[in-house]
């Protein structure tokens, strides 16, 4: 980070117009300004991390030690006891959510990739109409479609199990995954696709052999988004599944929402429930940085 940016511009002088100023003169306040900025940033970061701090502390305390008065104090002894207590309650929901979120994010990302490809690189007449129509799906609130969706699912016999919930999440994710992949593929050189056509590949083979291999960064974004939103969803989960298929959000609600549940258990459950999404961010996040197109073009 350069301190130069922060330095106030020197008063315009007559000579400044004629000579090229490569480096602005440093103000004598510059070091203080930088330090001050970091202090402010640090303070804000602490403020925003306070809930996480409380969550971690409380979850790791011995159940006997938990109290509202001493919420901010460090635990006297490190204990995983609380996790041991809540895990049996969460286990089923955790497994259900995995069985829901992984296929839902994979399928909707894959379909989004196909959509994005034909809407950007293998365009068909009417593509300019179809794309905005797909995007509309993003702006429809869950609540607006809840009742008709439930009726459709019920009449097709998909209410109760995870398959129906997966289908709903796949469809609901399509607008955003389509948008992600369309934007990504638009950035890819047309000549690459044309080279593949001239080499004899049709639409499907161009997609699978040429476009898909360069798409992992878009997959990372799309998977993170879809995994997070289907993992965190509560409304569809509670509405469309029967008790044995409840996702973790519903199970979490039963623990955290109860009146008599000690709140260290709520904290531990919340922590457990958020681990997979955190892992997805950490594991897939590094793909953002990679330039997978390197070497295709003259460079």
């Amino acid at each position, binding site marked *: 980070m350069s301190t130069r940016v922060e330095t106030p511009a020197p008063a315009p002088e007559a000579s400044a117009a004629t000579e090229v100023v490569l480096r602005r003169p440093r103000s004598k306040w510059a070091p203080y300004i930088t330090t001050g900025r970091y202090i402010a940033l640090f303070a804000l970061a602490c403020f925003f991390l306070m809930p996480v701090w409380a969550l971690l502390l409380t979850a790791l305390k011995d159940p006997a030690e938990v109290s509202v008065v001493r919420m901010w104090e460090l635990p006297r002894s490190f204990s995983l006891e609380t996790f041991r207590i809540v895990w049996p309650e969460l286990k089923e929901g955790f497994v259900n959510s995995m069985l829901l979120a992984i296929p839902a994010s994979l399928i909707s990302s894959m379909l989004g990739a196909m959509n994005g490809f034909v809407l950007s690189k293998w365009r068909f007449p009417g593509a300019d109409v179809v794309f905005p129509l797909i995007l509309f799906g993003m702006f429809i609130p869950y609540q607006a479609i809840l009742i008709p969706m439930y009726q459709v699912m019920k009449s097709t016999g998909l209410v109760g199990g995870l398959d129906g919930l997966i289908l709903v999440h796949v469809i609901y994710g399509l607008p955003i995954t389509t948008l992600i992949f369309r934007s990504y593929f638009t950035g890819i050189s047309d000549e690459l696709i044309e080279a593949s056509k001239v080499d004899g590949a049709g639409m499907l083979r161009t997609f699978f052999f040429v476009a898909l291999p360069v798409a992992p960064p878009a997959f990372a974004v799309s998977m993170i988004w879809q995994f997070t939103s289907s993992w965190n969803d509560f409304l569809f989960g509670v509405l469309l599944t029967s008790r044995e298929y409840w996702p973790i959000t519903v199970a979490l609600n039963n623990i955290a929402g109860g009146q008599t549940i000690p709140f260290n258990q709520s904290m531990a459950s919340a922590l457990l429930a958020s681990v997979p999404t955190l892992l997805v961010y950490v594991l897939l996040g590094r793909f953002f940085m990679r330039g997978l197109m390197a*070497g295709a073009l003259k460079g």
Partner: protein
Amino acid sequence: MSLSSTSESAARRGPAGIRLDQVSKRFRGGVLAVSDVDLEVKPGEFMVLVGPSGCGKSTLLRMIAGLEDVTSGHVYIGEKDVTLDLPQKRDVAMVFQSYALYPRMSVRRNMAFGLRMRGTDRIERERRVDQVAEVLGLGPLLDRRPAALSGGQRQRVAMGRAIVREPQAFLMDEPLSNLDAKLRVSMRAQLSLLHQRLGTTTVYVTHDQVEAMTLGQRVAVLREGVLQQCDTPQNLFRHPVNLFVAAFIGSPSMNFVRANVERRVVRFADLEIPLARAVPDGPVVLGVRPTAFAPADRDGWPSLTITPEVVEDLGDERYVIFEVAARRVDTDATRAALDARSADEVTLLADARARFTARLPGDALATIGEPLTVSVDPARLYFFDPDTGAAL
């Protein structure tokens, strides 16, 4: 190390010709990019499409490849009308300006991709890739990804990817324009050799007239979507059909001046040159190649006295630039031709006066500011209609 012996499929078919019949392209929005082009590329011929940027040469090439729809007219490859065929159904290979290598495939897989898509079996694929890689010196690079290659190497891989296919024709869209000047010259020579060896029909697009002249067996000059002239480099140089072709072809470019023809004498500024052939009386644009000048008095050649303004000494030859007391010819055609040239050749001095360049032998005496007598070959004067630009 012969490629031709292994190209059974290509040899069996023989190279195919390409024929464009009244081909036009109108883009959505109404821009007419290519207008009624008739062009025949003979089997095995190296045809260069050349012209300033936006002249439609790339569009024409892309229509042959099938990457661009044809608005009207027909495209034939071999005897077959392919106008409506998809690119993957046409047996042509293309080399793109950006090379367009598949970034996630190794060089080997890049080169084999076209064969794989066409169902060639694995053993045959590997054999052909190895062979072409050996010829192009790509052997040690076969397992690298394109990202790990230099510009020249990527260029060769792109070339190799086309050659491995043994297609009916190569289509090349400014394949050398991303290389540095030195590499470009050596690649140009290698490309000529390669064509001699393979004998595959090639259509090559460039905006560089030197590249066009050195590579092409025939060169098609395009301007604003219209085919101006298609001929051998020699004929383009010697018998340009109009002002544009005359100004575009040749380096340094032809000198132009407005002149008047009267009873087999052409007059411009304070000069008179008797003509060797009949030209209709009236105003004309006179064109003189820099190479049409010779020092001092040649037998039977008219002479003129000039005052050199600039003398460029290149050892073997010297370019003498002098002013002519007449207005510079500045028509759309000459401007378009100049735009297409490299920037250093464009006139720096926005002066209304005409300047001529004369090429003289290296030992010819020429001093800046001192009058000098040069002679002109009367047989190598060009006359153009000042309104239409057509050669007279």
